[in-house]
């Protein structure tokens, strides 16, 4: 595979881990805003004020004794997702698509008994998936039903769109498709496919899996070249709006497109990964520096999204 020289990386404007942490996360992200994005429950409430929609909240399990109530509630549901409020990197998220007698059917198709779900809830409450091991709450959300145009590319799981938002401007985006290797999760380091999206049009650019370029989805076998995201401008504006609600200068916004409700915010990330650059075949630095150089930033999310679509398509 070989090595790439630092000079080449510089020329490509590749943002690296250390620079991201020192020059962007540490400088533009207020520490006090972190709980807002590290806790999905708080995120939901915060963005709702700014008109950003999220999957419907079904139940919040805060105490061990409330777990029995969960079983009653789950009786009537078809599909739902259990998430630790403070989980990171998709850890601890269990997606249930349906029921088979007494057992629940996971997104992967495997069946698990109710007791296993309850143990999972217990683990979440104890803080197994939370960042610092602190006690957590579990949230139960309605299942997102992805639009078929996107869903067919993904192996199980819901494809989501990661948009890096810098000071309110969407700077880079990618579509994340679950694979067999990623166990239905849309996390790149677990083996999901990342498809870079042209910020100007929402059209796919390149695709990577495990940091290596690919052209076909490894499981569905579909070509990843001509994917186009609908209502692209609306999604960018939605991502830009998250800046107002959290105040985080540098963050990753994860969106899904629901078949019935349109674009929904899944979660926010104060430390978005760097793989998005590989999926796009572009470095983040030229775009980030363009925004840093802006003398008069735009005030409305709409303006910022438009600016990004105009300027960044060519950067």
């Amino acid at each position, binding site marked *: 595979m070989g090595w790439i020289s630092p000079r080449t990386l510089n020329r490509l404007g590749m943002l690296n881990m250390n620079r991201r942490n020192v020059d962007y996360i540490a*400088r533009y992200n207020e520490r006090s805003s972190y709980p807002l994005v590290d806790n999905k429950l708080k995120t939901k409430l915060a963005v709702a004020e700014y008109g950003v929609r999220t999957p419907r909240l079904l139940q919040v399990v805060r105490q061990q004794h409330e777990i029995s109530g969960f079983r009653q509630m789950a009786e009537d549901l078809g599909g739902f997702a259990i998430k630790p409020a403070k989980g990171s990197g998709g850890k601890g998220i269990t997606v249930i698509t349906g029921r088979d007698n007494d057992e629940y059917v996971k997104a992967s198709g495997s069946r698990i008994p109710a007791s296993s779900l309850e143990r999972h809830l217990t683990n979440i409450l104890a803080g197994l998936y939370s960042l610092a091991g602190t006690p957590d709450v579990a949230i139960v959300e309605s299942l997102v039903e992805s639009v078929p145009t996107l869903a067919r590319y993904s192996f199980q799981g819901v494809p989501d769109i990661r948009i890096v938002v810098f000071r309110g401007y969407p700077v880079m985006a990618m579509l994340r498709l679950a694979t067999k290797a990623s166990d239905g999760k849309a996390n790149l380091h677990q083996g999901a496919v990342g498809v870079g999206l042209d910020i100007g049009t929402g059209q796919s650019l390149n695709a990577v899996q495990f940091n290596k370029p690919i052209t076909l989805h490894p499981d569905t076998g579909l070509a990843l070249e001509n994917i186009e995201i609908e209502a692209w401008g609306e999604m960018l504006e939605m991502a830009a709006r998250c800046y107002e609600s959290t105040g985080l200068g540098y963050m990753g916004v994860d969106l899904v497109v629901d078949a019935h409700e349109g674009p929904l915010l899944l979660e926010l990330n104060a430390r978005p990964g760097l793989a998005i650059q*590989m999926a796009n*075949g572009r470095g983040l630095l030229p775009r980030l520096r363009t925004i840093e150089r802006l003398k008069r930033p735009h005030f409305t999310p709409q303006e910022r999204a438009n600016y990004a679509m105009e300027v960044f398509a060519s950067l």
Partner: protein
Amino acid sequence: MTPRSRLPFYIAVFLLIAAGISLAIWRHIELGIPWLSGEQRPVWMIEARVDFDANSGAVLASLNVPENPPGFRILSEQAASPGYGFSIIEKNGSRRAEWTKRNVSGRQTLYFKTQFIPDDSAIDRQPTPEPKARKIFWEEPQATAVREVLAQAEERSSTPESMTRELIRFMQPDTRTQNTTLLVSEENYLDLLVDMLNHSGIPARTADGLKLEDARRRQSLMPFLQIFNGEQWLTFDPNTAEQGVPESLLLWRQGSASLLDVVGGDNSEVSFSMLRQTVPALQLATMEFDSNGLGFLSFYELPIEEQSMFRMLLLLPLGALMVAFMRIVIGIRTSGTFMPVLIAVAFVQTTLVPGLIAFLSVVSIGLMMRGYLSSLNLLLVSRISALIILVIFITAGLSIIGYQMGFNTGMTVTFFPMVIIAWTIERMSILWEEEGAHEVLIQGAGSMFVAICAYLLMSAPLAGHLTFNFPELHLVILGLILLMGQYTGYKLSELKRFTPMKAYD
């Protein structure tokens, strides 16, 4: 939000590093703490032996002992004399060792041992009050002879030094004139010289020196002449007029009238034995801490138990530096940020190979047991607690089995921090469930690699020596870690990770 200027930060880091290095250099020069652990320094051990016959009564023996001999520093002093009261007293600007005893009879032997370090930087203190020339009264016909000899010498000289040299030359047997023959006799030569110099207005005195040769016994002192030139006492060889203290000559007596006084005894004599020893430079430095009052800067003042604890603690920054470097610059993933350092600390106590075997076996047995625990549906806290207890069982079991099989190294398992091991097992197990065995291997191997690197760094004898004896060097480590905290360049691992980007260049 404009980016802050980083200049103050860099200046602060520079100051930290400069302070650490300069403090270390200062302590090296001033206290003689060696840079390397094995350095040796010569030390002269000199033993003065005093013999006398006691007159069946109270005895007071008083021996002049050196004080600031030029070219040497006193390291230690010690008297050996059973039954005698002993003390060192300062009297009229000279130091005397005094032995006392109420009822003594027969032949007596007293010892006084001193250790000297050759030190060229040891300087004479300015004598206070300034010495004055004694008034000497001469009888005729000596008075005339003295006057004439002095007048001759004075004529051919300009300074007290040259005056002394000329005078000595006049008094030598081969240049003797009538005048000098009248004055000089075998025994009084040196005293006569001193008297004549004092008469001419130059403060002068006698001194005794000891020629240092390894493993000599029963040596006696050699007489020397000293004059005061207005600034300091200068030493002359009374026979050759050579100025200055010869190398490897220790001036035992300066400025004191007598070498040995014994009250209540006869036939007293002093003889000297000497031995050249080599002492580790570090030991020398620590012995001197006590005497020069700079010991408060050193960990050697602490009780031994605390010292060994600090030895360990002071190694930790090196481990932290290694972890920072590996993670920030190289980009190795580890399980738990500082777990490798704690494991490395345990390795320092167990040595590498037994430690590695013990650690890996504890973790792998623990992982197997954790597999059963996870099926019990326990709360996190009690699962970790149970794991801690299991880890203790495992270590105890390994120790006992190892001991029964004849491996004492089995006992070293107990050096590992149990709680850290329990957490490591827990994290590894979760990682296994969520990310698969591949990630466990990567992070586990990364942790082990960093731990071994940290161990190699921390167990180097030089590292232990420098961190313990120059604690200020930790400021340098702190500075380096702060600098690394500002490193925004690419990690080595990223050069590999981003390789596919070549296609877009």
